[in-house]
């Protein structure tokens, strides 16, 4: 089995927050969403997902409540808080800076 690329360190929180900007989702939904949106490239391990969600809860960037799914099962839905939205902005800016920096390095090395 080919090994799937790992998530860049530190990006999981950002991806979760971004996923939640559209609508509240349960844990499985978040994992599924990231997988689909990345065309199956990124897989969120459950071992990282749930501790990450607890971390975000603790920071007050998301909040959680139990709701019923379409199939009538109880599930915990996570919603982005205003603080979480702000945090997402910070993380996106940092991430873009990082990516553009990495890109510049790669291009310069190619041209030399």
């Amino acid at each position, binding site marked *: 089995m080919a090994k799937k690329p790992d998530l860049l360190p530190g990006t999981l929180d950002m991806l979760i927050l971004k996923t939640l900007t559209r609508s509240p989702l349960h844990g*499985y939904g978040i994992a599924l969403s990231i997988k689909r949106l990345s065309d199956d490239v990124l897989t969120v391990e*459950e071992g990282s997902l749930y*501790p990450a969600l607890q971390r975000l809860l*603790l920071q007050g960037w998301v909040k959680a409540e139990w709701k019923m799914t379409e199939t009538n099962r109880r599930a915990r839905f996570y919603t982005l808080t205003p603080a979480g939205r702000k945090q997402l902005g910070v993380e996106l800016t940092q991430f873009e800076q990082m990516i553009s920096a990495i890109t510049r390095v790669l291009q310069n090395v190619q041209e030399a």
Partner: protein
Amino acid sequence: MNPVSRFMKKLSMLLGRKQFSSDLDEEMTFHRDQAEKEFLAAGMSQEAARYAALRQFGNATRLKEKSHEVVGFSFESLMQDVRYALRQLASNPGFTAVITITLALSIGANSAIFSVIQGVLLKPLPYPHAEKVVRLFLSSAEFPKFPLNPFDFRDFRARNKSFESMAAFTRHDMQLSGNGQPTELSGFAITSGYFRVLGLTPSLGREFDWNAEIPGNGRQIILSDHLWRTRFNAAPDIVGHSITLDMLPYTVIGVMPAGTEHPGNDYHAVPYGESVDVWAPFEFEGNPNQRGSHYMEGIGRLKPGVSAEQANSEMNTLMAQIEREHGGSGWSVLVIPLYREIVGANQRMLLVLLGAVGMVLLIACANAANLLLARAAARQREVAVRLALGAPCRRLIRQMLTESLLIALLGGGLGAALAEGGVKALVALLPAGFPRAHDIHVDAAVFAFTFLVSILTGVLFGLAPALQASRMDPKRGLYEGSRASTGTTRQQRLRSVLVVSEVSLACVLLIGAGLMLRSFLNQLNIDPGFRQDHVLTASLSLPNANYKADVDIARFYTRLMEGLRSVPGVESAGAGSDLPWTGYDENAGGFRFEDKSPPPHEDFHARYHMATPDYFRALGTPLLHGRFFTDADSKDAPAVVIINQAMANRYYPGQDVVGKRFTFEDHPKDKDWMRIIGVVGDVKDKPNSLGAEPAFWFSLPQAANPDMLVVLRTTADPRQLADSLRDQVRRLDPSLAVADVRLMDQVASESVATPRLAFSLVGLFAGLAIVLAAIGTYGVISYSVSQRIPEFGLRLALGAQPTSVLRMVLLQAMRLAFGGAAIGLAIALLLARVMRSMMYGVSPTDPATFVSVLAMVIAIALVACYLPARRAAKANPMDALRAD
């Protein structure tokens, strides 16, 4: 998010822990179910889908743990560790008890010794800015620490620039009467400013001023708090009142507060502590140009920014000036910080004891580590399972350390309790007059020390087993753990190293104890120059008011001796200016013999004493030549002296000295010549002196001395004669106090108390050490035998003789013992320098001690491994085969 609300959130999650856990459970179940559904939808069978979902999800417990770690407090997992550790310890009570008791004993011993060190060495002296207080002595090659002359002192005080204040004092005991039983008081004559130097002020009244130093300016006295309370009912108006001392009225001008500590002195020593009852003013009497007599103890407080060394060099300049003005015999001045003077002599012994007890602790640590390693082997399977289930290494190490710390703290708690009792025993064992003995308590600092030592101990002995366990490969652990035999060679090597270090440290301690035992025995067995058994002693002091003339003094003592001789059970009765080994140090210089004078710029010196005719007979000091004094050697008879062997050897080696004469006068008349009539055996100054100082004795009537020590040699128990002695004194003078009634045995045993203490403690520690080392050796050998039982069985099955198996095991133990002993002997050789000053009549590298310790260690190792070795030799080949 701010830390406070974050903390509150965590707290609420912690309180709703059950909720949190079930939420998480439900959430994860939901997740798994959804995944399973998706696999089903993709066309998997029901069962395959469930396994796929489970596999994808991974270790659910570990997952939950991870989420818990995010929200949990770190102490939560610590509490888990502690609970787990407690369960482990409780499930193994024997193991826990052995290791805890070992640690409690060694930590307790450490805390007890530390209490002494804390009280004696670490606590500051009870004087404000005590570091500025110094003692002043004269010094020469012959007398390294000599008292000052009063007029020299007065010049020092007037001319120096280094001292804020300077004072001098000298022993001046007084007799209190007129208010109950006559009592002998421990007193000092002090110059003005004495208490200012110490930084103390009277609680009532004031201290002496300069006026009081002028002879005839009225008799004034300062009382101690103790005397004020016990004899004067703490009368608040005592200042200004008159009390009777030495039969004369003295006006009380002050009372010193409780806790006024005497700074200690050398000359007619009174120990450091609250040992002084009264202080009288010192009066500068006599001719300031005659400066031959030295009896003052100097003390001073340095100005800020002046060091003891700077003061010392200034004082030497002053001394040189003074000697130019008045002549002198080449004295230099010695300025010593008070702290060093008080505790200096005992510092080394205490540090040696601390070192010894520290070694015991190290051995106990090694032993504990060994036991833990052995148990770690037994717990290998448990560790392997936890590792396989995904427990992080860090967590395992922490778990192991938690266990060892718990054991150490348990041991430390018990040890603190032991220390409490140990310190009381220790203080009781300390020699009389040990400086600051009353400052020794188990206090907060001692508890802090105990706690710290426990923590360090726990980490020290827990680290090796913890690292060892965490480095294990779980697969091998699971596989090997299924059988009892597991220990890796690496672990076995580590345990052997531990045992070798235990044995080596125990060796060092045994050698130390052996050397101290030999020193102590040497001091007990030396011929002291007198016979201490069957001797009763007491001190008497005749007040000047009633015994003005020498003849009065002589008549009193002559009549007392006559009376005592008539008491049944008294063999001989004498009196002398001093007793052996009581710190008497009166020296006279400047004499010359008829046919022998000192070389220019040098003085003949000797110690002088006074004695009645039967003094030597009562003490049991032998007469070597000539005769003792008789009653005929009276005031009007020709002057006679008895000298000791050391003085005879110093001035007339190998010659007959009886009949030779010497004098202190520059232009002697015939009566100024003192004829030597006898030579007595040497009595060493102190039990540990290598020889005796040259000394001579005056016949009491020819040099009357009001303060004498009575010596009674008895045929029966000398204790029974104490009352007869008091009766005889009362018959002659009912106002006299009979003080310090003691047996010469007591005096002698007090003087060897320090070596006895050092030897007993180091001996105790060494005993503990060797027992621990033996247990360690037994543990390692026994463990290695139990592992090799199949091998031994096989060997025996293949025809090996049981004795050769026995020899194999014994050889293994011998390698450990010899290795340890060799290292131990090497360390002991290195430490010899430290020990030298504590030795008496034995070299710190004494071969006999080294060889016997070596033999002892080997013998003990043999005993320790005999049982396992026999077990190996009896290994049943069938058992061995079945086990595989």
